[in-house]
């Protein structure tokens, strides 16, 4: 793997010919994708298509063949997982920990933590033990933790998959707000409605390869292609087994 930093006119992340193999499984095959500033990309595709692997590669968390270029060395990235991991600390201390790890000056911690909690509607919960929060609140804390470090790009791995409809709606509203503020988001999801509602661009993966990379309107119009169309109609699993 090569990680390079170059001029700011380039995409935030530029991935070229990325391949990842886990034992005998080829998780990604020569995937190339650019993440532009202000993008909101939804990665969709059947189980095992390589969505999470691509997210981790884009985030720089996973070794791979090919190259990954960042627009510049100071690009701040964050990632939110399907099941957020929160430390057995108070909500506020979870935020302070994130700020410490991101090397944010100590003097800014209190202000940033308070703003982040307000952003996700949890101002009153700062002293609550994070593990005592509901699943939806923990996901909002994970989003606050990510937002607090002011990332240029936020990766989301099925952020609403384990949430009830109310919590799902709250998280979607937050993501829409982040995107409106100009944050770049790359999100894997199985929820096609969510992709349609939130994303500006849809990347369809199948068997470790990008099959389609289109604006959302075009993808959900008639640009998806045959296999993606099967996926959209929910026929993919049946087709794979046949």
């Amino acid at each position, binding site marked *: 793997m090569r990680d390079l930093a170059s001029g700011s006119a380039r995409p935030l992340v530029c991935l070229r010919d990325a391949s990842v193999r886990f034992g005998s499984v080829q998780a990604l095959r020569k995937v190339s994708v650019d993440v532009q500033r202000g993008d909101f990309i939804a990665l969709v595709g059947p189980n095992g298509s390589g969505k999470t692997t691509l997210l981790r590669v884009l*985030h720089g*968390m996973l070794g791979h063949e090919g190259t990954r270029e960042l627009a510049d060395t100071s690009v701040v*990235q*964050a*990632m939110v*997982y399907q099941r*957020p*991991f929160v*430390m*057995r*600390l108070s909500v506020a201390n979870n935020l302070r*920990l*994130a700020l410490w*790890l*991101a*090397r944010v000056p100590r003097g800014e911690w209190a202000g940033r933590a308070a703003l982040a909690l307000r952003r996700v509607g949890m101002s009153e919960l700062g002293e*609550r*033990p994070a*593990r*005592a929060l509901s699943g939806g609140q923990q996901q909002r804390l994970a989003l606050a*933790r990510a937002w607090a*470090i002011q990332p240029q790009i936020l*990766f989301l791995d099925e952020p609403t998959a384990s949430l009830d409809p109310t919590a799902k709606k709250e998280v979607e509203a937050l993501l829409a707000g982040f995107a409106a503020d100009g944050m770049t988001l790359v999100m894997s999801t199985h929820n096609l409605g969510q992709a349609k509602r939130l994303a500006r661009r849809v990347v369809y993966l199948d068997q470790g390869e990008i099959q389609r990379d289109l604006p959302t309107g075009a993808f959900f119009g008639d640009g998806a292609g045959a296999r993606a169309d099967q996926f959209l109609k929910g026929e993919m699993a049946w087709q794979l087994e046949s």
Partner: protein
Amino acid sequence: MSAFAESVRTAVELIVHADPVLLRTVGLSLSVSGTATIFAAGLGLALGAWLAVARFPGHRMLVLLLNTLLALPSVVVGLVVYLLLSRSGPLGSWGILFTPAAMVIAQTILILPVVAALTRQLVGDSLRDGGDQLRSMGAGPMTCALLMLVHDRWAVLTVLIAAFGRAIAEVGAVMVVGGNIDGITRVMTTSIALETSKGDLPLAMALGIVLLAVVGVVNTGIGMAQRGHGSALAGVR
């Protein structure tokens, strides 16, 4: 009166009358095993956390060795420390054989594998749960492992209780390196061994009951702290 009932009565009398010899012996037991637990915690938590994230040739072998050392016989530890600290041994110049310091060293070596092996397992399990998230936030491998010690602090405390329990209940190592010298290196377990060898079984049993009571009080205190934490987690405080 049965021997057991007499033992209980003797134990109660020893405690109620605050027998000075008993208090001195209990005090030395607690200080030797407590100090050994602190040293083993310092070394073992760091070693266990490091082993949970380090990958190098021989890593598996080292983990296997550490797990094997969980069954380390205390008398063997005593023998090794005795050989090291005896006048002709490499550390003989320290002149600490048959002192509480030697007993602390022996017990530290005895319980270090307990702390390190259980910590490695604990941190490894937690890293599978949240290691990716912490790394994505910018934490390096060792930082992740140390953060997991904070995350799992109550489980870590249980590991340390287990280590303390192993230290305070062992007799072989402290007998060999301490010599069971009255008023200097005599602890609860060596007292029990002595009284048993003298045939005073009720007193030996009574001392055993006192030992259990002392450890029980320590564990109760820690357990109350843990329960308090659990209540806080449930938002009931």
